[in-house]
């Protein structure tokens, strides 16, 4: 049995109370939702918060997927399993459903939350790449009020985000673009492992032309989980296998993977190329109405 260091436990019944507890206990306190990242790190004593603030009572208020105008609003306490089961998500952001299908395993998906995944900010986090591809915004509340942050400026480095120690991420918002669709591709050594590399794509299409393209990459050190040079290749062009292969190759070149036991750098770059190409092809087919969702 792996045993964590001594830790105090608090339980927040509202967002306001969670913020008040964060203010009270300072930077050595941590929010705990699904706990599937924090608890293992605590057991290995890699994380040693003095206080954990349990926000599971907030699930009632912060667990939802709903359409608000031309946006999808996803509450931070929404569990992975709920996201996977959501018809709204499948309809408007198939990339999310495809990613959720390959995130960890059912046990983790039943407990882990969207907000927890984003705030943990693991460089291999699938949802970071997904929301980067979708151009999401996140809502953050704290003692100084509420703010919205573009996903591109959300991450400040591996395992770090703009969320201050006394703040809480409450919601993720995704714009529903007309004529757009998306797809996600991931290769892992085994079901439940982190990605060796993963690529998501969102394409907005008008006629045969790509009017907007966003690519999200996980586990390969991509700045803001994006592949801007590959995206630039796509904009305004007509979709074709050659174009997607070229964009994939560019994504493979511009990301910044490092070798580890999941694979050497050259393989990861290759994998990014292949997965980007595949995600682009499928997203394009979907957006053009050419292939099944």
């Amino acid at each position, binding site marked *: 049995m792996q*045993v964590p260091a001594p830790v105090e436990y608090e339980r927040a019944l509202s967002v306001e109370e969670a913020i008040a507890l964060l203010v009270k206990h300072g930077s050595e306190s941590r929010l705990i939702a699904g706990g599937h990242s924090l608890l293992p790190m605590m057991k290995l004593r890699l994380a040693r918060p003095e206080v954990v603030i349990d926000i599971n009572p907030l699930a009632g208020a912060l667990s939802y997927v709903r359409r608000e105008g031309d946006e999808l609003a996803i509450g931070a306490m929404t569990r992975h399993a709920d996201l996977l089961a959501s018809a709204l998500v499948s309809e408007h952001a198939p990339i999310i459903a495809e990613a959720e299908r390959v995130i960890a395993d059912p046990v983790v998906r039943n407990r882990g939350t969207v907000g927890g995944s984003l705030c943990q900010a693991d460089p291999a986090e699938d949802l970071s790449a997904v929301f980067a591809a979708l151009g999401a915004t996140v809502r953050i509340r704290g003692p100084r009020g509420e703010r919205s942050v573009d996903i591109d400026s959300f991450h400040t480095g591996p395992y770090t985000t703009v969320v201050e120690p006394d703040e809480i991420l409450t919601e993720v918002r995704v714009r529903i673009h007309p004529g757009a669709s998306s797809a996600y591709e991931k*290769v892992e050594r*085994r079901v439940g492992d982190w990605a060796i590399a993963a690529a998501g794509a969102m394409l907005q299409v008008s006629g045969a032309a790509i009017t907007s393209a966003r690519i999200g990459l996980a586990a390969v050190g991509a700045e803001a989980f994006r592949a801007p040079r590959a995206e630039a290749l796509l904009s305004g062009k007509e979709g074709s296998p050659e174009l997607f292969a070229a964009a994939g190759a560019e994504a493979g070149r511009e990301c910044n993977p490092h070798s580890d*036991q999941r694979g*050497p750098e050259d393989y990861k770059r290759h994998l990014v190329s292949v997965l980007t190409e595949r995600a682009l092809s499928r997203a394009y087919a979907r957006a053009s109405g050419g292939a099944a969702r």
Partner: protein
Amino acid sequence: MTTVEEGKAHVGFGRMLRKEDARFLRGKGNYVDDIRLPGMLHGAILRSPHAHARIRSIDTSAAEAHPKVKAVVTGATLETLNLAWIPSLSHDVVAVLATDKVRFQGQEVAFVVAEDRYSARDALELIDVDYEVLPPVVDAKRALDPDAPVIRDDIEGKKDNYIFDWEAGDKAVCDDVFAKADVVVSQEMLYPRVHPAPMETCGAVAWMDPIDQKLTIWSTTQAPHAHRTLYALVAGLPEHKLRVISPDIGGGFGNKVGIYPGYVLAIVGSILTKAPVKWMEDRSENLMSTSFARDYHMRGEIAATREGKILGVRVDVLADHGAFNNTAQPTKYPAGFFHVFTGSYDLAAAHCHVRGVYTNKAPGGVAYACSFRVTEAVYLVERMVDRLAQELGVDPAELRMKNLLRPDQFPHVTPTGWEYDSGEYPRALQLAMDIAGYDELRREQAEKRARGELMGIGISFFTETVGAGPKRHMDILGLGMADGCEVRVHPTGKAVVRLSVQTQGQGHETTFAQIVSEVTGIPAEDVEVVHGDTDNTPFGLGTYGSRSTPVSGAAAAVASRRIVDKARIIAAAMLECAPEDLEWDRGSFHVKGDPGTSKTIQEVALAAHGPMDLPDGVEGHLDATCVYDPPNLTYPFGAYICVVDVDPGTGKVAVRRFIAVDDCGPRINPMIVEGQVHGGLADGVGMALMEAIAFDEDGNNLGASFMDYLIPTSLECPSWETGETVTPSPHHPLGLKGVGESATVGSPPAVVNAVIDALAPFGVKHADMPLTPAQVWRAMHGNPMRTDLAIQ
């Protein structure tokens, strides 16, 4: 498909539900960590963060000042008890707690005993160890370099990292065969370091009763009797005052054969504190410090005629044994049974040379369902046969069929000295090919290749070598590998069978009851199996190397026959006839020609305990014992076929089908056999595709958690297709051969052969396990990686 009739008495072999599952399925097992004794304290081990470092000093004062800490033990403490080092199972010594140096990451440095597990763990952080970090030996291939750091400077005069050289087979004859052969193919291959990773980690509860000076140890051991004797020999404790209890065990796979420092420390902790002490390692401790398996760098060569008649196999092995030579196998075989690498083929000659070296890694080497390195041997020969097929451009099934030993060649003595007991190899391979639809699969593959799709078909034919072993050849530290059994029939006809072997999930409580039932006719439900407690069972060396059925199963059969023999005499007295006038109907005797005049075994049991005058020389009661010294090993075998699909873009392998035909002789309980085969096949898929412990250049263990050391899930495993042939062992009383490790031994080469077959369009000849997506892609591009080192 397993179907079991409920509510009916089961006599003899056949499918029946596992008796032990009544408690396991309810979560009511009793594992070491479930043991709670009054006043029990908890221990935790401080481990080395470095692979190689000199210990300048250890300051334990802050830990000792912790209010809940009862004792802190260091190597210095143990030196005063003469317990800092203990003998290994392979003519070496092992540090219980490091005194001079640490020699692998995760090595035991200090032990804290505290009132609770949390405090013990917290206090570890209060111990200050001053290390002088030394350069480590990580790459086994560099271990014998002249400038390599010397790991074992504790051994007087030791100037290098050499352990042993060992050979088998006639080198001159073999070299001659190779010199004259039309075709010789050679291949370097690594069987990487893998870990048994049983669901239950290792642990112990020790209680030295200060009044009667009796030491009781509940521990995760596959060999309670061997442990008791070794504790007695090592610590000078009187053996009659030692009791080792192995309660329910959550998987062993060889990981729980040896004596770990933690067990010794729990004992020392109990002696020092005069209280029971529990020590239970966590997952990372299990993965980092306990017995691994394999780590064999092999160079194989195979010689054949142009027509595809295999003539010989020779192998050169560099064996990485880690920091201490602590492999567990019969004493005179430092490379275990590796010399069974001649496999299932009719060879003119064979030779192997194995060289063992020290590295700064955890010790071990023989663990994980390996039958003493038969896993490595089968992998070697089955990869070599596929390499030969590739070189000759012939179908690997056809090449095997042509070279398999024929039934009329048994008993067969191999060029390395094994005497295979029985086998019908071509029949098993043909059955596997029939189940697979082999020719159709090859047609499908050809079509797919034409479209650029990668599909592979891999075959493995293995011969296992289990049931160690004949006392004249095999002992462990001087203890002969014979096992005892006692069968006692109670007055009411129910029975108890006491065994030296210990189940870790294999279903002994069911299968041994079935063995007694098969012979005596007493329903299996009426036979209680007692094991895992040295005070209540006869001596024997325990469960590993698939030896329970071949050795203890034979002991149980012989003891049961002795029961029946005695019952015959008593029944004859009851029926007032001569014993030879009785016929045995399994469960009852009747007078020949008069089926109505009979006595059941239960009636005989009551009479044996009753007032009746028994014939001269027959004592009362109905019990018998046997110590079984097997005349030979048993040789289960099987034919496996694996079908894989490889994504040409990503290198990801999907195992589509797996056909396993096993021949383990008669099956005691086919359901349990199938379960063991299923588990072993999953093991094989894991080792072939994802499992490995690599080390970085500083000697850091890169597989120290289940995030890093991957074990396959149901999603990586196909629905297994199993088949059977039955070739009884001629020397086992019931013809049984054992099956525990067959699938683990046989499956990895089938998976690897399938993947390499899929990659044939790229000209790939070999790539080492695990065949991760990255490794497959690298192989496709002619640049496969070394899988024992950090990926660069």
